[in-house]
Structures are given as structure tokens and as C-alpha cells.
């Protein structure tokens, strides 16, 4: 198992897990979220081939209601 930080919280993932696996594990709709790995944005096409390593910091964002600040 690996420990990575997702949106500020530690999560355990399988060795060799890719970003796409993490998104599936979290039951998120891929077309509704964006992913940053160690502060670098990943294109959706990169998710299956991008493997997580120990200590990676992952940010997953989506859209919420808002007008201004």
C-alpha cells in the first residue's frame, strides 16, 4: 500500500495505482473533476498512465455554485 494525500487527507491506495484508479475508487465522475498532482495539472488522457508514488499530493476539484468570492 501507498499513502498519498488527497485534498489534504491521507489516503491509502494499492501499489501501482494510477490516477484513474483513484478517481474510480472515490466514485467520482471523471468528466466532472480536474486533477492536480503535486501542483501540476494532469490532462484526463494522462490519468490511466500516471502512477501514484508514496507521498504524492493530489488535488481533485469540481464545480460548485458560486458567483463571486
Amino acid at each position: 500500500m501507498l499513502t498519498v494525500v488527497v485534498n489534504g487527507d491521507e489516503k491509502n491506495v494499492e501499489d501501482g495505482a494510477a490516477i484513474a484508479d483513484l478517481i474510480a475508487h472515490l466514485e467520482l465522475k471523471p468528466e466532472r473533476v480536474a486533477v492536480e498532482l503535486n501542483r501540476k495539472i494532469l490532462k484526463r488522457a494522462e490519468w490511466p498512465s500516471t502512477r501514484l508514488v508514496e507521498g504524492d499530493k493530489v488535488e481533485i476539484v469540481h464545480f460548485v455554485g458560486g458567483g463571486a468570492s
Partner: protein
Amino acid sequence: MSDQLVIGGRTLKSRLILGTGKYDTFELMARALEVSGTDMVTVAVRRVNLGDKSKESLLDHIDLKKYYLLPNTAGCYTADDAIRTAMMAREVLDTNWIKLEVIGDEQTLFPDNIGLLEATTVLVKEGFVVLPYLNDDLIIARRLVDAGAAAIMPLAAPIGSGLGIQNFTNLKILREMIQQVPLIVDAGVGTASDATLAMEIGVDGILMNTGIACARDPIAMAEAMKLAVTAGRLAYQSGRIPRKLYASASSPTTGLSR
């Protein structure tokens, strides 16, 4: 057909742009958007709450065939954060549009004009259509236009304050001096007459959220705002009469029966 709002090459049917925050329910928001006649809505980017198992998504309630989505960088306090947020928004949605906010102060939510200019410059180079939220300041507005902003969106009062138009003079000056891109009032409108007064100055559109979402009846207020924007636009185009101190009879002054 001759009087449409065009921003960044995109023609909008409505001069009202709405925010999607602060509604009690997604259903209420969807109805308000519908009734307002808007065709562009702004949405914020936030961390996914991994503990929320409902998985209900804002985007499930916005008909993307009917509305253009305008992601925003609300909550960003540095140019870097705003740029990151814009880039992430672009990854989720097939849009390079961004309502750019770089906030400089928590209590007033006034923009940090320096960070705003910096972020605008970077994002325009990255191919974004940038709609910056700024102070009612002609000089920063000109700099933003020079940097490639697709519209200029000054506040009329602090965000969410509902104070109405507090800066007529500055907005009028902006209207006279900024002709290259649309001028949109972003923030401060509290009720329908505020929207009309802004439109009567000649601004090209209004972006609002709280004034509708937090009204006692958001659906009715959405309709009021739609009518108010239309009324203000028509009045602006019609050319108001000059103000005079004394009366001027509107009935003939001759031929009175004696």
C-alpha cells in the same frame, strides 16, 4: 437582433449573467436561471468533498445546451492561485472562458488590481477569454484591456452587499472611456431598480448572484431582474430627456376654453 451583447466573439441573448451560489436548493437555482432568461452562468471551482456520499453535482442541474458556463476564480487571493484555478476549470469543461477574480481583502472582497493584471496577462497568453472583476478604476481598466481582457467587470458596490450602485460617476466615466470591450457591472445590485439604473448609464450587462439567490422569492426576483435589465437598456437607447428645474406643460398652452 441589432442589440445583442457580444463578448469575446460570443453572442448572448441576455444582458444578465447569473451566479449559481447561495440558492437553498439546486432546483430553486435551476428555476431562477430559467426565469431570468440568462444564457451565461458562472460557477466556482472547489475541492471535491470526499466525505460527501450524495455525489450530487451542480452540473447535473445546469442544462449545458441552454447556458454557457463561465467558471470563476472566486476565493483566490493571489495571481498564482487564480491562474491555477482557471487552468483546472479548463480541464473539466470544454471552455477557455474565465471570470477572473484576484481578491485583495477579506472584509470588502475588493480586487487586488495588481494581481489581477498579472493573472490576466498570463491567462490571455494561455489562450483564455478573460473577464476580470475589478474596481471601478479607469486606469486599471485600460491596463486590463491592453492586456487582452475580453470584458471589463467593475463592481458597483461590495460583492453580496446589495447596496446598489454606489459609484455612478466612475461607472459613467468607464462607460465613456472603455469602448473596446463590453462593460459589465459585477457585484452590488440589490434590487431591480439598481439593475435598471446601471443599464441606463449604458453598461452592456450585469452579473449578479446574491440579489436573486437571497431574495425571499428568488424566482420572482429573477423575473424582476430580467425586466429591469431590459427596461434599463431600452431607456438608455431611447435617450432620456434633459433634467430641468422648472415645469414644462405637456398639454397645449393655447386654445384653452374660457
